[in-house]
């Protein structure tokens, strides 16, 4: 079992998530873009999904979301649900391309982050909060999406490393030597 844990993606994801959480709570909490806090942990969850597919993205989003809830004091699971969905949506990229271009990954990371950010107040509604919608919700989602898209060239490789995903080893037919 210990070997399974060591081999699992959690052994890398948890410490990386802690560092990202620390960055979220320090520098990214300070740097607001038009009054909106950039969600770098959410972007990492989406990037993991874009790198590894829906299943791995869901696991990464769930893990990062629970960590976020633990450290933020929000109800445990509320952020995890939103981040899980973010990873799932970003992982839909695997349905389109097996080895996507960086800009395609960036688009899906942005999409995943948008879904995750939009789901946060929805989950809060389900747990009984009154009016959890932040003012100017559209602006918040838009800025979080753009920020995640911009950060994706950094976060997708990081997510790939966390999930122990190796690059594709097959070669295109054009590269094969002629018989």
């Amino acid at each position, binding site marked *: 079992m210990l070997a399974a844990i060591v081999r699992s993606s959690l052994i890398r994801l948890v410490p990386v998530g802690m560092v990202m959480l*620390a*960055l979220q709570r*320090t520098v990214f909490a300070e740097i607001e873009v038009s009054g909106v806090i950039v969600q770098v942990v959410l972007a990492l969850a989406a990037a993991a999904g874009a790198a590894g597919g829906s299943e791995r993205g869901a696991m990464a989003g769930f893990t990062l979301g629970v960590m976020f809830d633990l*450290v933020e*004091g929000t*109800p445990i699971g509320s952020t995890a649900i939103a981040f899980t969905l973010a990873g799932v949506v970003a992982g839909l990229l695997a349905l389109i391309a097996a080895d996507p271009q960086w800009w395609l990954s960036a688009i899906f990371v942005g999409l995943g982050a948008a879904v995750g950010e939009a789901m946060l107040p929805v*989950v809060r509604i389900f747990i009984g*909060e*009154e009016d959890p*919608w932040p003012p100017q919700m559209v602006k918040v989602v838009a800025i979080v999406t753009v920020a995640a898209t911009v950060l994706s060239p950094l976060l997708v490789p990081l997510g790939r490393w966390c999930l122990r995903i190796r690059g594709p080893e097959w070669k295109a037919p054009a590269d094969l030597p002629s018989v």
Partner: protein
Amino acid sequence: MAIYTVGRRRVIVGLLLTAALLLTLDLRGNAVLDTVRDGFSRAMSPVERAADVVTNPVQRGWNSYNNYDDLERENQALRDQLDRQRGTQAAAEASIIDYNLLLALNNLPSLTGIPTAKAQVVGGATNNIDQIVEINKGTNDGIRQGMAVVNQAGLIGKITQANATTSKVMLVTDPRYSIAVEILAGTGETSSLDDLETSNTTPSGNTEEEIDQIILDAVESDNDDAVEDGADAETDDGDIDGETNDGETDDGEPADETPADVFANDIDLPQAGDLPDPGVVTPETTTTTLPPAVIPGEDAPPVTDPDGNPIETTTTTTTIVDLEPEQLEKEFGEMQGRGAGQLPQIRFLQDIPSLAVLEVGDLVETAGPSESLAPPNIPVGRVINRADRPGVAGPLLEIELYADLDKLNFVRVVLFRPLSEAGE
């Protein structure tokens, strides 16, 4: 759909259900989850400190770039504000002291008797929904969940989670925050308190001009008496000074009576032990040299004692606010936050003109009923907008907070627990 298989879908659904289960457990309160949360916060603490140190130059650079103009404008505005407030600070401090003395005299609870714990804000909100900041004091310093948090300006929030060395503070702008408040009706725009102009008067109610006139009249009357007495004396005894040999005038008054004595007889000076009139705020005792009364066309007679020294009289200058003290009507309601950038609102109000008329500018304080987590009389803010609602819903008030929640640094946690909780 080969990649998006049924098995993978099961994993995703399982994770979502697990999150929902955790959510349910946490909302119902679970000691295990609380322990895990506390442990994870401890584990995160050194990582956060390291990240803070490493990224500090980035934060400073961003702030320098982003906030320089705002800081300059704010600095200028604050200087103006400081100049204005210096003038009112002394009077306010005296009023607060008087207020606390009165509370102590009547055995009423006051904020001064409640201990506080100083803390510093070490973390801000990290998402775009919650209005929660983190402070660097926790249960080790006596902080418990629910305690009110204030800064120099007023109420800023309450403790929602207390760990050993850190605590989470939910700001008053958070949509989940609500607290009972009282609105001091009559302190707003049309308040008569704003029109008060304190005038220095004596206890008799005479102004300085009136006192000068009294002195003038007294001197004139005394001179007239002296002239008449002189005429009588010249007629009777041939003595023009009008004095008898035993040192008394004809009507039996002391011969060395001065205008000051006349003045003193006319003014009802306060005696030790006298209670001040209603509305008297600040009595100040000053010793002044009696100004010489000037009679038009004549030289001013010297006001001296028999030894030739100038006479000093003690007058009491009293600031009278109003003979009828202003009766402030209170209305109670519930203040609730509405998110970042939105003003908190007060609901559940009744606007009955015969009791209290709520208006823009009214002061808002915590009401502190017996089960409230916050003690009474913590200043919160001022009413800035009023919206009337149809029917019996009552008006809706928007509050401009005294505290600037965007720039929190040092705060105080009011170590107050209501009796209902302290007894547990």
